[in-house]
């Protein structure tokens, strides 16, 4: 691995092409891993189904969307949950580049890469869900800007945030290509990109919640509040960090050969620290939820089926994992922290799906409700697996977990 940095110095375009072609070939010794065996057919099937969706349209049998339920899992899970899980990037860059807590520096690149890919793939899933996808560039280069629409803001923020994250990650690309001067210039852009990125994230994480504001009477009163945007923003902090904990746990097993000793040793410290941040933000979130419940006086609703569902989400998947994070970080119980992260992620999935189709039009009887088709699920899995493949491809080539080449080390701090 280290040898590559010494051998390569790209002098001209021909070198560059040869290098890229070489890098495009698969790396790693085994191709028939269990993950590959499961994911490859799903990705292939998913691609076929995506083509079918483009020819056939969104109606049955592709999706179970209806006039009553215009949004399903392609928006509710892929976009709403995917973007919340990608929130780790803005939180970790805030900790490392603004608060300058060096402890977390080792996870920055993986987190930013994960965030960037999440935006490309999951926000990209909008393309599938848009009935008139060929118009997707209209909000960006069209002649009719709905500048007063929340979704207009969200669309622009997605695009700009992808650029910001690309800039944040670009030093790793430059190191991979051996572009020393570009590496230096791109490194100086990081702080600006981080500040811009955090600002954009604040607004579009909450903006996703603000999309639901006009569905006022369609969302169950226990979930509908004028503070939805704030709840979405606060929950994206611990949703993103839980994803970082989860992703880190898996990555450290899969890519363990790339990690130096120092990196592995500090990982437990990092998880404990992230667990603490999760605990604090989750408690704040829970407190907000209680305040809103008291303020809106909907407690009589708690003793209904939807009320139990609400309690399951707020107590079972927010308060309990919050305590698990507290206990886990107090006793350095890494297993408990990981379990809490998984529960928290489940809670976020339930929460976002509630807004999109579960607590949305809760009054519609079960047999007329939206339930995703197998095609919707396979396409979603296809997107997730493809993202993991791309993540792996990049990690195996660029310095994400492993140390940057020595020539880049002096510029690392910025």
């Amino acid at each position, binding site marked *: 691995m280290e040898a590559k940095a010494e051998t390569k110095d790209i002098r001209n375009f021909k070198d560059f092409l040869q290098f890229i072609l070489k890098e495009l070939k698969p790396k790693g010794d085994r191709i028939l891993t269990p993950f590959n065996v499961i994911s490859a057919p799903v990705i292939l099937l998913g691609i076929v189904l995506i083509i079918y969706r483009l020819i056939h*349209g969104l109606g*049955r049998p592709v999706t179970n969307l209806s006039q009553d339920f*215009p949004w399903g899992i392609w928006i509710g899970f892929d976009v709403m949950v995917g973007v919340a899980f990608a929130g780790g990037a803005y939180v970790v860059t805030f900790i490392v580049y603004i608060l300058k807590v060096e402890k977390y520096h080792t996870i920055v690149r993986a987190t930013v890469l994960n965030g960037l890919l999440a935006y490309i793939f999951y926000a990209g899933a909008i393309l599938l869900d848009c009935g008139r996808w060929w118009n997707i560039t209209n909000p960006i280069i069209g002649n009719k800007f709905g500048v*007063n*629409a929340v979704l207009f803001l969200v669309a622009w923020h997605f695009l700009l945030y992808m650029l910001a994250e690309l800039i944040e990650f670009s030093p790793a690309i430059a190191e991979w290509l051996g572009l020393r001067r570009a590496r230096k210039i791109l490194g100086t852009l990081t702080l600006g990109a981080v*500040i811009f990125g955090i*600002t954009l994230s604040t607004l579009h994480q909450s903006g996703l919640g603000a999309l639901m504001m006009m569905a006022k*009477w369609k969302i169950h009163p226990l979930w509908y509040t004028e503070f939805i945007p704030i709840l979405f923003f606060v929950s994206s902090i611990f949703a993103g960090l839980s994803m970082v904990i989860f992703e880190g746990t898996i990555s450290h097993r899969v890519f363990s050969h790339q990690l130096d000793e120092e990196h592995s040793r500090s990982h437990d410290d990092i998880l404990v620290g992230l667990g603490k941040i999760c605990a604090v933000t989750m408690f704040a979130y829970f407190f907000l939820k209680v305040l809103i419940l008291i303020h809106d006086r909907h407690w009589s609703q708690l003793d209904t089926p939807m009320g139990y569902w609400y309690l399951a989400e707020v107590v079972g998947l927010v308060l309990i994992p919050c305590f698990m994070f507290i206990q886990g970080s107090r006793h350095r119980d890494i297993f408990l922290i990981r379990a809490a992260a998984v529960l928290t992620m489940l809670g976020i999935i339930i929460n976002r799906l509630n807004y999109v189709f579960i607590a949305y039009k809760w009054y519609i009887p079960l047999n007329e409700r939206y339930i995703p088709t197998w095609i919707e699920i396979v396409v979603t899995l296809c997107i997730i697996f493809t993202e993991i493949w791309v993540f792996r491809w990049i990690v195996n080539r660029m310095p994400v977990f492993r140390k940057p080449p020595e020539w880049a080390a002096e510029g690392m701090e910025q």
Partner: protein
Amino acid sequence: MDRRSFLQMIGATAAGVAGSLTAPGVSHARSKAESGEFYGILVDTTRCIGCRNCEVACAEVNGLPLPDISDKSLFASERQTTETQWTVVNRYETEKGKIYVPKRCMHCNQAACVAACLVKAMKKRKAGHVTWDTNCLGCRLCMVSCPFDIPKFEYNSALPEIQKCTLCWERFQEDKIPGCVEACPTEALIFGTRRQLLEEARRRIYQNPGVYNSHIYGEQEAGGTSHLYLSSVPFDQLGFRTDIGNTAYSEYSKGFLYAVPFVFVLWPVIMLGMSRAIKGEEKEISEGQA
């Protein structure tokens, strides 16, 4: 410049400034038409006989499949408008017997679908018509947002469109009244400016004591709509949502949109300041140690 025109100019400037400061998503919808006012339809449900001629006229005018109006069994269940039926007549059993109610787009003064649209495909025309255009992305946020569940999406098409009543926008440009109004044999539907319709509705309420419920549905609902309803019974008996509230739906996302410029200005400044402050502190510590 005489004093009068000067004052007018001041007034116009003030209005312009106020207009640009008003809520996002509101200003374009709130502005009155150059011709004056929003047009609309007054539906007097005491006059509707459930003949469904309006459904046929709507289909003919808009090139939609013709409904079979001889089939009375349809009244057994409440129907919603669909992508191929932009107006439907429902029958309700009420305290005053059977009442027929035609349903279609309400053409809100400050429509939720218009405020939701990121490419202005949904548009509030100057004369009050809410129409759809082909630069739409098909994101369906208008359907999520509409308090009356009116925009309908063509799921079974690879080139789908959003379908809904346009208040016969094309016919309006040819100085014709909407197809449904023209076809109504009992004048249960009348077309006019919103102000004329409200006056007429109030006149009917005052001049026929005991006949009408004094509430005009659409006068205040969702900030006011171009489609107005008169009824002899409370509206909740006629399948109307009475919990919609009188606030224009575009107001609900206003709080968030107001916060945007604050975050955009304050966040970078605060973070840059924090970053600089911490950097300075680190330097001091390292210098102190040295």
